[in-house]
């Protein structure tokens, strides 16, 4: 404030020396631009001071109370086991590794949940607008039930009421070499043998070929109006080519069959019940919201568009695919993004049933073993922030791509 005073004190002198300027200069505090600048600088410095005080106080107080700070603990040996890990993890790994294991498990459940919820949500959303009374009512019933029950209760329902009542390992339900029991879903693991590389190459080659064909077909249609069955060709290529290669190279894929040895099944791949319960609950819950978003999007496309398509003689399926959905997507994508973000953040409820996600492993066990709450919690918050920002960045990019581009 003092500088403000002095400058205002100088001004009259200056203007007096220059002898009546052509346009009378308003007083400093009467110029709205300068005034707002002053207030912004003031606000910023107050904010800066507040944050500095918070950080400085925190550090001083932590030191006073004899609480260890810093990120050194990340390299110390963790010494505890984790039920499920996508990477090699043993008790001898570091606390830093527990962070990675938890992070990967969180990403896994988020991606699995987003895919399942999107598919289920789109089907339900379209179904709710169906002319078929039964289909429409079923969809409405589903949405109203699952949207209105708290997610945590749904997780408990799937975990305690459904999966806990499955039989013990010795009485597993068996089908096609897979087993279901209260320890999870266990199925044979594919083991690639010599020559399987060829099948992989074939698969990617087929994808590349399909892409080229799609491009060519689009160009041809624009030039000549002739259509080409792109979808069928793609499916044929992507499935057919690797399959033919697989059969001709003598089926170079072994299976590691699970076997009951001692307490549990050995071999194969085990999907733990905590993952299944969380996945079911998250997908089913979020799908109900996505369905409503999709319904809103479809209803936002004016009826005249559908009528015009019908007048042109397009089939119902084609109308939906080519006219309605592309326009509906423009309305659907922004709220869909928030549903994806919700699902990712809701996955932290995993800790309630013991699925080893980031919150359970890192902000749970690691925090408690090291006692470094501030470091661990801020790392965890940073992860969710980063995941959410990445999701919304991607969705915004996609949204911008599908927006109406006027020519």
């Amino acid at each position, binding site marked *: 404030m003092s500088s403000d005073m002095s400058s205002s004190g100088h001004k009259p002198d200056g203007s007096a020396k220059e002898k009546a300027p052509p346009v009378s200069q308003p007083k400093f505090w009467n110029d709205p631009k300068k005034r707002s600048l002053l207030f912004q600088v003031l606000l910023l410095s107050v904010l800066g001071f507040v944050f500095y005080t918070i950080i400085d106080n*925190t550090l001083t107080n932590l030191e006073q109370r004899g609480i260890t700070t810093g990120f050194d603990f990340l390299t110390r040996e963790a010494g505890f086991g984790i039920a499920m890990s996508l990477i090699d993890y043993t008790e001898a790994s570091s606390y830093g590794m527990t962070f990675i294991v938890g992070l990967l498990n969180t990403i896994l459940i988020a991606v699995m949940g987003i895919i399942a919820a999107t598919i289920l949500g789109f089907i339900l959303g379209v179904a709710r607008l169906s002319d078929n009374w039964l289909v429409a009512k079923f969809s409405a019933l589903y949405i109203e039930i699952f949207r209105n029950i708290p997610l945590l209760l749904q997780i408990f329902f799937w975990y305690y009421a459904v999966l806990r009542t499955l039989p013990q390992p010795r009485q597993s339900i068996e089908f096609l070499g897979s087993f279901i029991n209260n320890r999870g879903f266990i199925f044979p693991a594919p083991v690639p043998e010599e020559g399987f590389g060829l099948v992989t190459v074939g698969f990617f080659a087929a994808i590349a070929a399909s892409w080229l064909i799609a491009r060519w077909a689009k160009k041809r249609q624009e030039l000549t109006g002739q259509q080409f069955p792109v979808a069928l060709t793609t499916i044929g290529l992507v499935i057919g080519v690797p399959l033919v290669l697989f059969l001709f190279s003598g089926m170079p894929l072994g299976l590691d069959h699970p076997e009951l040895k001692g307490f549990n099944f050995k071999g194969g791949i085990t999907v733990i019940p905590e993952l299944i319960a969380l996945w079911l609950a998250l997908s089913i819950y979020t799908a109900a919201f996505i369905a409503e978003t999709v319904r809103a999007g479809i209803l936002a496309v004016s009826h005249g568009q559908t009528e015009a398509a019908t007048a042109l003689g397009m089939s119902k399926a084609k109308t939906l695919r080519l006219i309605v959905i592309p326009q509906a997507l423009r309305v659907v994508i922004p709220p869909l993004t928030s549903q994806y973000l919700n699902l990712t953040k809701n996955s932290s409820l995993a*800790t309630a049933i013991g699925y080893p996600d980031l919150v359970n492993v890192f902000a749970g066990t690691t925090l408690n073993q090291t006692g470094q709450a501030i470091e661990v919690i801020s790392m965890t918050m940073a992860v969710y922030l980063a995941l959410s920002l990445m999701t919304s960045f991607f969705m915004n990019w996609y949204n911008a791509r599908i927006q109406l581009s006027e020519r």
Partner: protein
Amino acid sequence: MKKKLISAAVLMAAMTGAATAGTLETVKERGAVQCGVTSGVPGFSVPDDKGNWKGLDVDLCRAVAAAVFGDSTKVKFIPLNAKERFTALVSGEIDVLSRVTTWTQTRDTQLGVNFAGVNYYDGQGFLVKKDLGLKSVKELDGATVCVQSGTTTELNMADYFRANGITYTPVVFDTNDQAAQAFDSGRCDSFTTDLSQAAGLRTRMQDPSSVGALPEVISKEPLGPVVRQGDDTWFNIVKWTHNAMLNAEELGVTSANIDKMKSESTDPNVKRLIGLDGPKGKGLDLADDWAYQIVKQVGNYGEAYERNVGKDSPLGLDRGLNALWNQGGLQYAPPMR
């Protein structure tokens, strides 16, 4: 959610630099001791059907209240899970943590807390279903084990299995109760925790007689009350509350006979305990009859033990390591003089 709130509370407490007033003054002003306990471990801290907290850890809190206020009912019990407990204590949400907490070096030196003694010497063991016919923990190779997260139990198990080359899958839950239920419903082959807690949780299982403990005790678990670091007055009060209960047992002073002892006893040790002589309450900033109130209202250590975890309780545990030093155990209190 609660966990996050508490973490935020730590942050806030650390930020504002509050709690400059001593814990004793804060407690007196509030009119109650806030005591962190488990959310339900039979024998140690569990609410009965009328909502009254019962247990060995609960009795320690009641004894602190008796010493401070002369009234053992002036306690507010706050149930916490293992992950929340230290944060709750450091942030000032509770005054004493009496929640089957193992005394370890890291906890004592890096968390900003102090352990005020050992009110139960425990060890970690494994529960299994008897029909599996297991004789030893070493036969658990390949087993799935249910365990509570954020406990020394989790680490001891990992160390023991690693040292013996046994593979296992841990399934980790927030509370010991959840872990025990998961074991009971067959999610795990075994459930590991401190043996005293295992004995308590076993009584709640569908068929307690079908569950047994394996013979190995794989760790030392000295459990005791914890206070914030940096407040020696309060630290002393909690420490000497426990010591007074031990000394009372050693001298044969019980809640039933203390009034008689007060008027009749000529033993100088008893007189010092009751506060008729000796250091009284001066150094502790307490009333002179603080120890008298503890024994009168809560009882001595032996009484608390037998009523909560010993032969008068459903747990029926022997005194074992928790017998007094002169009866073959480890419980030993410095003299009151």
